[in-house]
């Protein structure tokens, strides 16, 4: 029985980062992974979707090229080469996954390939081999929920209905797609396939898509997607699925929609398989942990999607660092109000902290300032003016408590807000920070000027 300081169960962005960090801090570490390292994120999530989205963006730019003075004599000769598009995705994923395997190796982490079953808080079984560890980090991630909808299981078996993993590996471009659910992943797939020319319908149970996202962002994105031709049906109750047809009810009316592909994107659930022998406390969202990511069982830590605090790769990684550091005697913790989250739509969304409504509910003396991309010189120069920034601050000190950006590079731009909030920066600091001209990032400075006093580059009704 090989003995380790730490056994990490699951090699996703939570597990592999925890393992590398712990090894860097001097621990002897094993990772148990039944699939490829990199987890959902690298193999089936973040990376393949963003690789495909890049192709979709290129296609869009191509179709719009004449507005930039670049003509394609015969636009019909532009063709999506599906096999090449998929091949590129696979190559990118393989390269990054290979990189992670190398990183683990170079940091001296041993990777065991196979399904791990936890025997007790110090022992893990991998295909009959026993590993012992002083500490255990559970990082088994999550899987798509397949709710009980009549006929759905049969539709999956017949190859019509797929989950996100299926949706990144379709054998040909679907002419039409119905997406059940209107969360972030749904919006990304709607963007991807709509941009490639697929007819996309989103069926959303509640009043609007992107629950939990700031109101202005939701409104803008919903409007924008509709303008791009995505059909969004809200207040839907899904009745049953019949092959490629979804039957649903809306405002008391029975309706149906038929499509090449049905994408089921109705949330994810923690992967608890292999953990049955541990008397883990499990809450509504997943395994319950304290600030240092320790579960109710001393020496057993849990991180990432398995805990379900924020189902994001960078959260899994950050939690991995906290767990590794906690085990190795360093203390750190995550302020979940300072974690950015992104939507890779066109335009992108980057958000952090409180939405306006949340800030009010939390009792801040809320100040809000927005600035539109349509008044930004660089956005005009680039011909992409849909978007804005909204800064939510606490008037007491001017502290920035939330920033919401819709813009072409919003996912990169939100880092400015993240570091500001980390440093407990105020709108005064943001306004005084000289931003380069011409850049999209100037909207942040302008909105901050608006929070302090008045922005320069827009006519403010007062």
């Amino acid at each position, binding site marked *: 029985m090989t003995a380790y300081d730490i056994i990490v169960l699951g090699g996703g962005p939570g597990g592999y980062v925890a393992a590398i960090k712990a090894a860097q801090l001097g621990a002897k570490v094993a990772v148990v992974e039944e699939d490829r390292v990199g987890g959902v994120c690298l193999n089936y999530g973040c990376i393949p979707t963003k690789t495909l989205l890049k192709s979709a963006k290129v296609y869009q730019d191509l179709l719009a090229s004449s507005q930039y003075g670049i003509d394609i004599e015969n636009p019909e000769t532009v063709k999506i080469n599906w096999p090449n598009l998929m091949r590129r995705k696979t190559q990118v994923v393989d390269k990054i996954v290979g990189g992670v395997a190398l990183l683990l190796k170079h940091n001296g982490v041993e990777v065991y390939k196979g399904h791990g079953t936890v025997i007790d808080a110090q022992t893990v079984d991998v295909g009959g081999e026993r590993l012992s560890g002083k500490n255990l980090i559970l990082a088994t991630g999550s899987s798509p929920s397949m709710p009980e909808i009549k006929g759905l299981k049969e539709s999956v078996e017949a190859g019509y209905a797929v989950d996100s993993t299926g949706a990144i590996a379709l054998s040909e471009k679907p002419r039409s797609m119905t997406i059940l659910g209107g969360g972030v992943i749904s919006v990304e797939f709607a963007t991807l396939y709509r941009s490639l020319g697929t007819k996309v319908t989103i069926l959303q149970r509640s009043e609007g898509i992107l629950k939990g996202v700031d109101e202005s962002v939701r409104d803008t994105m919903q409007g924008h997607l509709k303008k791009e031709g995505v059909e969004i049906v809200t207040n839907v109750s899904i009745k049953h699925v019949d092959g490629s047809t979804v039957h649903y009810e809306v405002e008391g009316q029975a309706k149906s929609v038929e499509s090449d592909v049905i994408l089921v994107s109705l949330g994810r659930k923690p992967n608890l398989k292999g953990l049955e022998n541990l008397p883990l406390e499990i809450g509504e969202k997943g395994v319950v942990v304290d600030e240092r990511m320790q579960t109710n069982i001393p020496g057993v830590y849990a991180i990432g999607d398995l805990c379900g605090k924020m189902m994001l790769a960078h959260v899994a990684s950050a939690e991995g660092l906290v767990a590794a550091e906690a085990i190795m005697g360093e203390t750190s913790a995550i302020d979940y109000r300072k974690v950015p989250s992104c939507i890779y739509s066109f335009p992108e969304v980057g958000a952090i902290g409180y939405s306006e409504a949340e800030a009010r509910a939390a009792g801040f003396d809320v100040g809000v300032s927005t600035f539109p991309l349509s008044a930004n010189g660089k956005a005009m120069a680039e011909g992409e003016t849909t978007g804005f920034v909204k800064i939510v601050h606490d008037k007491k*000190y001017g502290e920035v408590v939330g920033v919401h950006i819709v813009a072409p590079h919003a996912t990169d731009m939100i880092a400015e807000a993240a570091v500001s909030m980390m440093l407990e920066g105020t709108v*005064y600091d943001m306004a*005084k920070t000289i931003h380069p001209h011409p850049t999209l990032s100037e909207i942040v400075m302008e909105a901050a000027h608006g929070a302090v006093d008045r922005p320069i580059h827009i006519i403010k009704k007062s």
Partner: protein
Amino acid sequence: AAEANVTTGKVLATPVARKMAKDLGLDITKIHGTGPQGRVMKSDIQKASQPKTLEKDHVR
């Protein structure tokens, strides 16, 4: 820029200012901040740590 936030309890200060004040054994709540919204900056700590005779200079 507003006055220092001494009266309201919380002190806006930069990470470097805090570290420097700690190194020099200065009470950051007693230092006048000249940064945005009265934030205590590195230069404020440097000024405060200089001998009293020099302090006249920055009164102007």
